[in-house]
C-alpha cells in the first residue's frame, strides 16, 4: 500500500469518524469541535484529488469562517459558562422516521454506487488549479460569480441593518 492510499484511508476515517461524533454527540460544543476534524478530513480528500485550491478554500471557509461562526453562535446563545450544552432528546417517532429515511437514502446511494459504470480518469497532475478556477470564474461563470457577490452584499447589508442600534 503506497502513501497516497494510506493517506486516503486516514482522511476518510477522520471524516467519517468525527462525522459520527457530530451526529451522535449529546454535547453541542463537542459536536461543533468535531466538525473541525471532519472538515479537515474533507480538505485532505480534496488534496488527494489534486484539487489543492479547493482544499485550501475548504479549510479557509469552513474551518476559518463557518465553524468559528457556529462555535460563537453556540457559545453566545447558551449560558456562557455552563459546560452542559446539550442537544435535546429525540422523540421515539422522530427517531423512527429519521432512521427509516436514512436507511432508504443510504440504500439508494449504495444502489447508485454499485450500478454506475465509473469512468476512472488517469490521475494527472494539474499544477495551477487556482489560475484555471480564477479564469473560469471571471469569464465563463461571470454571471454566477457576480450573483453570488450580490447575494453576499445583501446579506451584509441585512446583518448590519439588524445589528445596528434602534
Amino acid at each position, binding site marked *: 500500500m503506497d502513501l497516497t492510499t494510506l493517506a486516503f484511508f486516514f482522511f476518510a476515517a477522520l471524516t467519517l469518524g468525527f462525522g459520527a461524533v457530530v451526529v451522535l454527540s449529546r454535547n453541542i460544543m463537542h459536536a461543533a469541535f468535531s466538525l473541525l476534524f471532519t472538515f479537515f478530513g474533507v480538505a485532505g480528500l480534496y488534496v488527494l484529488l489534486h484539487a489543492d485550491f479547493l482544499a485550501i478554500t475548504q479549510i479557509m471557509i469552513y474551518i476559518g469562517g463557518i465553524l468559528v461562526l457556529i462555535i460563537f453562535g453556540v457559545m453566545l446563545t447558551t449560558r*456562557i459558562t455552563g459546560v452542559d450544552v446539550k442537544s435535546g432528546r429525540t422523540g421515539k417517532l422522530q427517531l423512527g422516521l429519521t432512521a427509516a429515511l436514512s436507511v432508504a437514502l443510504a440504500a439508494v446511494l449504495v444502489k447508485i454506487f454499485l450500478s454506475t459504470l465509473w469512468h476512472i480518469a488517469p490521475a494527472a497532475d494539474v499544477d495551477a488549479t487556482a489560475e484555471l478556477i480564477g479564469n473560469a470564474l471571471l469569464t465563463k461563470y461571470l454571471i454566477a460569480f457576480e450573483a453570488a457577490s450580490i447575494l453576499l452584499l445583501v446579506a451584509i447589508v441585512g446583518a448590519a441593518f439588524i445589528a445596528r442600534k434602534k
Partner: protein
Amino acid sequence: MESTNFIWDLMGKNLWSVVAVISLPLIFVLIYALVAILAELKVSAWIQERLGPMRTGPWGILQPIAEVIKLLQKEDITPTAASKILFNLAPYVIFTGAYAAFAVIPFSEAYAPANINVGLFYIFAVGSFSAIGIVMGGWASNNKYSLMGAMRSVSQVISYEIPAAVAVLAVVVLTSSMNMMEISRMQEGGFWNWYIFGGPGGWTKIFMIPFTLTLAIIYFIASLAETNRLPFDIPEGESELVAGFHTEYSGMKFAMFFFAEYANMFVVAAVVTTIFLGGWTSPFGSFLAGAGWGAFWFILKSMFVVFLQIWIRWTLPRFRVDQLMYIGWKVLLPISLVCFIAISFFSLLNLG
C-alpha cells in the same frame, strides 16, 4: 519543475524522506523557540535597562533551557469542571495551526517542505486552526476569563485577517503568483528588487513604492494582532483577564501554547520576509547568494522581523478593545484597500 527540496534529491521519495521533510522544520522550530525566548528575555531587559537573566550559563544564555525544564517538571493540572478532551486537545490544535504553515515556507531555494502553488492562501487558511484551538481551550477551561480571552482573541484574529489578506493580495497582484518560492525568486538581484521597494522593474516603479511600503507596514501591524502580541494582546491582558485563554493551563500544555505563539511569530515573520523582504534572496544581488546562503538570509531576515515584534512588545502599551477594532476596521482596512486599488491600477498600466 526543478527541485525545491534537497531532501527529495538526496533520498528519493519514500517514507523516510517524508518523515525527514516533515521533521526538519520541527527541529528548526524547537531551536528557534529557545533562541526567541532568550531574545525576548534579553531584549526586554535591554529596553528596560536591566541585565536580564545572567546566572544560567555565560550571560544567561542557558536560561531558555532552564525554563523548558521548569515547565516540564510542573504539575499538569486539568480542572475538574473542565471539558477534559477538549481541554487537553486545544494546545495541540493551536500548535498544529502554527506548524502546518511551515509546510510552505521557502527557507532557501533548495528547501521548501512543500512547494505548492497556493502557498500564501494556505498560510492564511491554516491560521484558522489556531483560532479554533484558542476557542477550544478557552471554552473547555470552564473559566470566565479564559472564555472572554478566547472570544477577544478570535474576534481580533478575524478582524485583522482582512487588512493582512488585502496587503498580501496586493503583492499577489504584482507577482501574479501565490507560490512563495516564485515570489522569492522574482525578487532576486539585490534589495532594490524587494517588494517593499515596489519589486523588480524599471524606474516607473517608484510610483508604487509608497503603496508597497504602506502595505508592508499594514501587514506587519495586522500580523502582530494575529499572533496576539502586544500592543494587541488584549486576549491575555494580565491586568484584565489574568492570562486570557491559557489561564487554566500549566506545565507542558502551557509550554505548548508558548511554543505555538513563538512558532506563529516566526510564520508571520517568514511571510513578511518572503513577500516584502525578498525571501531567501541576497540583498547584494549575486554576492553571497546560493542555497546555503539563502537559508542564512531567510533566517536572518525573519529573525529581524521577530526582533521587531519583541521590540514593539516591550515599547508600546496595550490597546483597549474598542481602539483595537477602530484601528482594524476604520484605519488599516481602508488604507490597505486604497493601496490595493492603486497597485492594481499600476500593474494594469504595466508600470513596474
